[in-house]
């Protein structure tokens, strides 16, 4: 890996992960129909040249189903991670700037939510909202913000104490100027990286909640549904039903992770020249 310097390697990582995610989304949405079509003349086919992921017990093309499922997972991940990150940003900044009472209330809520296992809270919220897409998105969004909010709160509190911000205030700069010029450049990388690293979490939790039967309904080809249905057929030797979707799910999650890590390293000014 001596052909590229670290920065270029990061750029390549970002490029490949984004390209992979975009391709999955596009192919998944092109294959919406193909993922639903059943054809009993081709059921239970092992992976071959025309169906490289094989077909299931209803003769559905597993490649199309996997891609469709993944693109749904990515959509859910992006939406819920974005909502979650915005909640985190607002509450984090509010906790750090609005005074003691606000801080203790928000900190209490953060601890409260972090104290309950994600998956449990997620199931509760999802079931309470009637499962389905809405329940899962809201559930994931409401359970994933505390860690990022805590990070942002700590960062703002630390920033407020730093000499250059105190100096800026003495130079007559307004709160708004200081927030925009001094705080935002520090918070933005944290926020972006936090946001991107929330995606894989959100996707994994979406799949697990769906796998457990508290998430999306069974007619939607979500990756969690595919995996949970495949479990029933695994014992009869149809390994391809779970293997390929599982691998692709892991690859998707890793791609988001690579994206987040590369972004973090790129946005750190200390690594500008590496």
């Amino acid at each position, binding site marked *: 890996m001596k052909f590229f310097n670290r920065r270029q390697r990061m750029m390549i990582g970002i490029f490949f992960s984004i390209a992979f995610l975009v391709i999955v989304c596009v192919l998944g949405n092109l294959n919406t129909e193909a993922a639903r079509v059943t054809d009993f003349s081709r059921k239970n086919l092992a992976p071959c040249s025309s169906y490289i992921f094989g077909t299931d017990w209803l003769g559905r093309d597993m490649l199309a189903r996997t891609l469709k499922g993944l693109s749904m997972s990515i959509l859910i991940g992006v939406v819920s991670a974005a909502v979650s990150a915005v909640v985190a940003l607002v509450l984090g900044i509010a906790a750090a700037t609005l005074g003691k009472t606000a801080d203790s209330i928000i900190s209490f809520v953060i601890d409260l939510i972090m104290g309950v296992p994600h998956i449990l809270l997620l199931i509760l919220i999802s079931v309470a909202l009637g499962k389905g897409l809405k329940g899962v998105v809201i559930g994931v969004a409401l359970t994933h913000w505390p860690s990022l909010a805590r990070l942002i709160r700590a960062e703002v509190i630390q920033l407020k104490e730093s000499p250059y911000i105190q*100096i800026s205030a*003495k130079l*007559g700069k307004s709160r708004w100027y200081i927030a925009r010029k*001094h705080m935002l450049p520090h918070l933005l990388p944290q926020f972006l990286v936090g946001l991107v690293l929330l995606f894989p979490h959100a996707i994994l939790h979406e799949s697990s909640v769906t796998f457990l039967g508290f998430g999306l309904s069974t007619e939607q080809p979500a990756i969690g549904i595919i995996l949970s249905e495949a479990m029933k057929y695994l014992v009869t030797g149809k390994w391809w039903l779970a293997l390929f979707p599982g691998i692709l799910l892991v690859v998707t999650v890793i791609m988001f992770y690579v994206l987040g890590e590369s972004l973090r390293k790129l946005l750190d*000014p200390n690594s500008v020249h590496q």
Partner: protein
Amino acid sequence: MENKMNLEIKNVSYRYREDGRQILENFSLTVSQKERVGLAAPSGYGKTTLCKLLSGYLKPDQGEILLDGKPLASYRGYCPVQMIWQQPEFAVNPRLRMREVLLEGDAVEERVIHELGIEPDWLNRFPGELSGGELQRFSIARALGKRTKFLIADEISTMLDLITQSQIWNFLLKEVERRGIGLIAVSHNQELMDWVCTRQISLEKQGP
């Protein structure tokens, strides 16, 4: 410089909450705009605390700090008393280019920037790409805005080499003289203090 201002500190006491030790007790001092006052004391006697009180970063537990007869805290916006911090690395935002750091100051003159030996190329760099001495020039330039009436120099040259020290102090003396800015300097270097200051004060009898 028709109307001369005084920076007064009257019967001020201060202690940090955490350790509860009294740093300053009933301390008074008046500095006029014509003066260059040196503060001397061993480490831990409250020199930096006094500097921060004088420039409004800290509020005294008792007593008051007056600028031109009015409490320093009543000056909104740009503070006429500007302090130059000991460590320039912390005094500039690592994510802003030096050009922006200078823009924060109050219309810092091109002449000041030039005479401090700041090279145009440095303006496009980030703080991490400059040395301590180079950064200190920037924080001095930033503190020398149009409305600055008093300058507090808290060991600003301690970590610099002798040539840079003399460059910076030569410039500061000239600038302070020309604009009638009152100077309060802290240093452990006795020769430097003898050369720079018109009056020297020891905090030692104040000490713990």
